[in-house]
């Protein structure tokens, strides 16, 4: 202000008015002068609450240090230090193969890398994964492309992570096992699965005759890193027992000795290659039965049954194999024989390791011997086929039967009209009557009079309530066989339709038949020939089947994978008794939590560190091991 005044004074009061005006303006602008302010004015702050991370005021602060070179100059050459750590280890792995005895491969010493990534160069693996995404996107338009690609992908993984079978290996096996136990030609029947969908290209089948043989094979394969697949009766519906690529097939069919049977306790000890039907006949002579029964009993082997935890028809009465298998002998991946042969029903000493192998689908070890508890044979058996109006009736019958005939029920099966039509059309069998839903109930007891009395009571009430529309029962063996043939013939008859989409699921009973009705509605105007279902309703297990004349991608698109998600949402299981194998292994997350799968992987790594046992089965593919 003073400066201004002086300035104006020197101009000899030239403009007094101007001065006054300026003073007046300054007077108003003076914040402290409250006299003239109409309201209190706060200081305006830009971007209140925000503190910028960059320099806001003026030029950037200058560095005072003169030693820093200006940017435009060429940096001084650093003297290389050949003895720092990075330089010192550079290329050390390149020579491992040359310097060592040839056992260690560069990919083996990679750490913190998924096992399937080891041995892939650069972004080769990434390219593969990107291709997976692309082909998955086009899976309906170009299904064959995806299938071929998947196969080549597996071959890529196999060739990098496992050694190739060479002539020396075959000669070694011939030397240790004998010529009869090695087969190298005409292997189509061993490579192809029962449904003729999956086919491997193995070139070697081994037939061990004893536990020692299995142990020798495994220890050799483990040192050579040759993958193996264990094969029993090859009746798996998820292709769990056929090779994906060129794994060695370990066929257990020559290990078929029954070792001992205790007549008082019913404890059977046998080798794992025994065929179920032979065992059934053997224990039948001693008035015992096997605790489970399957449609495939003519060819399936007990080792495979245990490894897949097969359930079948007598489940409702005798429970699963977890309850009935008392002891196992298992050969581990490195050839060690693990003896878990206890014939005691009560044995609380430490972890129950045998339970791990039951249902492991051959990924943890090879089962060579089994001790199983056989229940006594019921003297009197009745098979009853009921005709019902709806699934609701079936549920009320199930409830009634459980309360009135509970202790006698040894099988409770559901067959719907479509499934019955399959048998009628393709196998020329005749059901005794027409129905919407059939219930096939097998009852067994030692006292025929008691059973007969209870059964009469049950049937009379069922007819009086109007639940049972029609029905028949018989205790004559040939009639029972005829009735069972209606149920057991369904899988065979379905295959005669052409192509069969098979699903084996567990569902809560209130959603049990809903799935079939939903799918029937969905597939109405497609090329699907039939949508049918049958199953062990007593154990909440549904076998859901769709058939078409040949493979139709359109049909498959409508079923999979929505069906799995639907089931998972309702608390069911995507695989009830067939296991996961190589068909369903990538859907495991729908039934098991992430943590559980992690533990499965760590178990797999613990039991089989080189991952040679049944690779690509049960556990999901693209997962860090």
């Amino acid at each position, binding site marked *: 202000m003073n400066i201004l005044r002086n300035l104006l004074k020197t101009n000899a009061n030239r403009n007094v008015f101007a001065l006054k005006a300026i003073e007046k303006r300054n007077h108003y602008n003076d914040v402290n002068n409250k006299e003239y302010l109409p309201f209190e004015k706060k200081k305006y702050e830009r971007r209140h609450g925000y503190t910028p991370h960059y320099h806001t005021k003026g030029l950037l602060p200058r560095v005072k240090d003169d030693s820093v070179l200006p940017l435009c100059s060429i940096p001084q050459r650093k003297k290389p230090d050949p003895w720092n750590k990075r330089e010192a280890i550079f290329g050390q792995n390149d020579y491992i193969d040359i310097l060592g005895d040839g056992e260690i491969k560069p990919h083996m010493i990679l750490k913190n890398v998924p096992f399937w990534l080891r041995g892939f160069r650069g972004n080769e693996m990434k390219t593969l994964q990107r291709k997976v995404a692309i082909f998955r996107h086009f899976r309906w338009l170009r299904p064959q492309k995806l299938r071929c690609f998947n196969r080549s992908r597996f071959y890529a993984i196999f060739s990098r992570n496992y050694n190739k079978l060479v002539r020396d290996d075959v000669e070694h096996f011939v030397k240790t096992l004998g010529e009869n136990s090695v087969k190298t030609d005409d292997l189509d029947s061993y490579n192809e699965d029962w449904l003729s969908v999956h086919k491997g290209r193995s070139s070697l089948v081994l037939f061990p005759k004893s536990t020692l043989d299995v142990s020798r094979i495994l220890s050799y394969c483990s040192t050579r890193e040759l993958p193996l697949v264990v094969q029993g009766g090859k009746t798996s519906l998820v292709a769990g027992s056929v090779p994906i690529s060129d794994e060695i097939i370990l066929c257990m069919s020559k290990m078929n000795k029954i070792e001992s049977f205790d007549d008082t306790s019913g404890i059977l000890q046998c080798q794992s290659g025994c065929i179920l039907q032979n065992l059934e006949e053997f224990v039948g002579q001693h008035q015992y039965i096997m605790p489970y029964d399957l449609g495939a009993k003519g060819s399936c082997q007990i080792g495979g049954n245990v490894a897949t935890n097969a359930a079948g028809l007598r489940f409702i009465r005798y429970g699963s194999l977890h309850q009935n298998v008392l002891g196992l002998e298992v050969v581990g991946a490195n050839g060690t024989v693990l003896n878990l042969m206890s014939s005691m029903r009560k044995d609380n000493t430490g972890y129950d390791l045998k339970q791990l192998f039951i249902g492991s689908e051959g990924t943890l070890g090879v089962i060579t011997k089994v001790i199983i508890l056989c229940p006594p044979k019921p*003297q009197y058996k009745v098979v009853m*086929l*009921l005709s019902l109006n709806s699934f609701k009736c079936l549920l009320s019958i199930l409830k009634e039967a459980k309360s009135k005939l509970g202790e006698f029920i040894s099988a409770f099966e559901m067959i719907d009209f479509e499934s019955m039509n399959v048998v009628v059309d393709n196998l020329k069998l*005749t059901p*005794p*009557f027409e129905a919407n839903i059939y219930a096939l109930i097998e009852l067994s007891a030692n006292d025929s009079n008691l059973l007969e009395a209870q059964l*009469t009571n049950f*049937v*009379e009430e069922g*007819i009086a309530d109007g639940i*049972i529309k*029609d*029905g*028949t*029962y*018989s*205790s*004559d*063996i*040939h*009639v029972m*066989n005829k*009735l069972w043939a209606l149920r057991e013939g369904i899988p065979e008859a379905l295959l005669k339709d052409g192509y069969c989409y098979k699903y084996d699921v567990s569902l809560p009973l209130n959603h049990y038949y809903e799935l079939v009705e939903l799918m029937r509605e969905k597939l109405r105007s497609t090329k699907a020939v039939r949508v049918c279902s049958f199953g062990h309703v007593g154990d909440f297990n549904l076998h859901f089947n769709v058939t078409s004349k040949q493979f139709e991608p359109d049909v498959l698109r409508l079923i999979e994978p929505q069906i799995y998600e639907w089931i998972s949402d309702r608390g069911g299981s995507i695989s009830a008794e067939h296991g996961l194998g190589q068909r369903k292994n990538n859907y495991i997350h729908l039934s098991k939590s992430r943590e559980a799968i992690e533990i499965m992987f760590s178990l797999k790594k613990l039991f089989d560190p080189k991952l040679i046992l049944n690779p690509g089965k049960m556990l999901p593919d693209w997962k860090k091991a």
Partner: protein
Amino acid sequence: MSLRVLVGCKRVIDYAVKIRVKPDKTGVVTDGVKHSMNPFDEIAVEEAVRMKERKIASEVIAVSCGPSTSQETLRTALAMGADKAIHVEVDPKDYSNMQPIHVSKILAKLAKDEKIDVVIVGKQAIDDDANQTAQMTAAFLDWPQATFASKIEKDGDHLKVTREVDGGLETIKVKLPAVISSDLRLNEPRYATLPNIMKAKKKPIDKKKPVDLGVDLSPKIEVISVEDPPVREAGAKVKDVDELLAKLKELGRI
């Protein structure tokens, strides 16, 4: 004219059971073995019931000779649709010696007593394979017989029966009353339905003794020994035709 039909049903070891011969070779093991109705008799019962359904027959009576367990078989026949059953109670001891001739005498006597027009039996029982009962019954009654029937039709006062013979099918006409034995392809037996099984439990079963019918059960044939069929010998593999010929010559077959 509606006919009264008598059907014979024998209780035999179920054909799905594996037969075991007794160690002393006097017969086969029957204790604790599942029994059911002879399949040919089942066909006979089915045919009788069908005749009733076609209104050719008015009443179907099932007969079984044997120990008290034979009643199960009769219940099955009743459940399939027979109206009435007669159980000719035979002592288990006598039953082991019972032969087709005794059964034929019993059937003949019953046919006269019950004023029967048609007797239908299975062509043979699967346990002794005798194939005699129908023929002998016809002889005792002095009635015409139509054996191995594969089709039965009513033709006025007669029955037209198609038989399976070696050269093909033979159709004969028999006067009533007559005796018929059923062959395998006559029909396919039905399943007994639940309401019928329940009804069968309330249907009457008459009990009679062979003595009441005036039949003497002393055996006419003696069983010397019962033996297992010879076990099939294991085969051998040959490499080529020459070796096969050499082997056959060695065995003296060519």
